[in-house]
């Protein structure tokens, strides 16, 4: 099934730059069957757009030769995929045992407290201004440097409350063009 993306009216609204198009094609070519590349294609789309819109899912489905539903069920299953845009600065704090023993839940509570979010909520929460998203995630496989967290793609080990405060300040004072670090 090689439906071009323009065949779907919704997918027509999506602007896929040529470099992304080429990267997706190159990924798909590595697999015995196009569908195998589904996660890699979704990662590429989410890295570019920040989340997976219905249009992006339809576009991916056409490239992978499957129904949009078969891509949607991946987007809803895998915790790393989002269907809503996250805040500009996305904190993911490990909540699993070794990190919890090292105080990661207190770090999460502190972040929520500073940003006006609910510390009791473990799932993703975004501030009203769309600047910050905070969530607890499961084990990040760095238990010897607990507690650990991600701020966007920056991995922070042996995180302290003071460090978290500094990170918030740095995010707040980041110039608008330094988006998505």
């Amino acid at each position, binding site marked *: 099934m090689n439906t071009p993306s323009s065949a779907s009216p919704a997918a027509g609204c999506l602007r896929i730059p040529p470099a992304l198009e080429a990267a997706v094609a190159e990924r798909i070519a*590595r*697999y*015995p*069957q196009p*569908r*195998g*590349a*589904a*996660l*890699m294609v*979704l*990662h590429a789309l989410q890295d570019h757009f920040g989340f997976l819109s219905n249009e992006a899912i339809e576009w991916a489905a056409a490239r*992978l030769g*499957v129904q949009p539903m*078969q891509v949607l*069920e*991946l987007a809803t*299953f*895998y*915790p*790393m*995929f989002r269907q809503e845009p996250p805040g500009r600065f996305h904190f993911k704090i490990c*909540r*699993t*045992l*070794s990190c*919890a*023993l090292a105080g990661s839940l207190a770090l999460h509570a502190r972040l929520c407290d500073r940003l006006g979010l609910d510390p009791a909520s*473990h799932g993703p929460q975004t501030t009203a201004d769309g600047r910050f998203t905070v969530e607890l*995630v*499961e*084990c*990040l*496989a*760095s*238990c*010897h*440097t*607990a507690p650990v967290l*991600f701020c966007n*793609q920056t*991995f922070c080990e042996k995180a302290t409350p003071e460090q978290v405060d500094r990170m918030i300040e740095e995010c707040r004072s980041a110039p608008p063009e330094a988006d998505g670090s």
Partner: protein
Amino acid sequence: MPNMIQERRIILEHLDRAGYTPDLGCYRRHGGYATFERCLALEPAATPEGQTLSGPEQIRLEVRRSGLRGRGGAGFPCGVKWSFVNLDSDRPIYLICNADESEPGTFKDRQIIHKDPHQLIEGILIAAYANRVHQAFIYIRGEFIEGARILDRALDEARGAGLLGRDILGRGYDLEICVHRGAGAYICGEETGLIESLEGRRPYPRIKPPYYPAVLGLYQCPTIVNNVETLCAVKHVAAMGGNEYAKLGVPGDPGTRIVCVSGQVRRPGYFEIEIGKATLGQLIHDLAGGLHPGRSLKAVIPGGSSAKVLRAGEKYKLKFARPDGKEIEREAALLDLPYDSASLAAAGSMCGSGAIVVLDDSASAVEALANIAEFYAHESCGQCTPCREGSLWMHKILQRILRRQGRPADVDNLERIAHNIPGGRTVCAFGEACSWPVQSFVAKFGDEFRQMTAPPP
């Protein structure tokens, strides 16, 4: 201290040394890829029985002789796993490196991938060559963003040096390795779930039989799934020979193993030991720096969060073989347990993924179990009802106990649920993984649970 245990670094030999970098040049300067080149150049050899073995057959024989057991969690002998593959099949044979390191407490694969990626690639090359594989995948967990980049760079280097791709080193062997990123789902570490995920589906594990990966794996083709550490060990088996490798460790559980120690210890870290030659006490005290000042030991989770917890003060009956071959039984305390599969099994638990989580007397058993139960409730794929519902019920009950809204019947409820999920009622071993912690914590720390669910006086 005279009896201070030492690490025995084979896989980790170089990677933390000053100046050791993850690039091809550095790996080669340390003898890297020499084993693979030797494997590729192996001439057919005759056995004492008059059989002629091809190069790949010789490698497979060495791996079988080594007795190497898988390092991902289940501990299945690697050579036996390989022997299930029908090499004469006209279908492609795939090799998948399971780098979906997600068992809470485990962080060893990350070290290898970040600091010595070429060692893993050499292990994959040897395993692939030995099993007629021409397409391999590295399934790396999605959160290892930097790890995936490092592997991609290392694979490009290897390709540039003729170690990957078509006609490798001019010897007519072709292999491609593709890095595939997961997206945050623990169940993808289960080998058949991983295969579904790699085919672009939800990672619902497949039922065995018939879907043993070696028989009906990726695209219904014969498929070998090995953990990162296992594949690195294969490189060392090929370098040392199976018999030499088998001299390390203990009979039935040979070699070295990277043990991750975390939780309430002073120097959490990863330590490569000869299997069975260090006790839990030596790992925790000598290597991981012991407990924090003023603290006493409460419990040890010895093999990743799925392993049954061991309580300080417990005594276990271990069987030892005397030099004359006779078996004797000896009692061992928790910290005197040698770190090997048989000893941990005798203690009612397992080495699992090689991850030790230490709890001291400041930790609450209820909180620790509630934390683990939340993990499993979040990670159950939802395919089988007992696991999907049971893991969620256990999580909810534990949360309500933590909120002091527990009911006196909750302790029994937890036990009943935890005994009704596993035992063949689910497609995969996740059912066991989510139940064992609950079974063991409630059995061993029942007082703490009952205290928190007692009606107010």
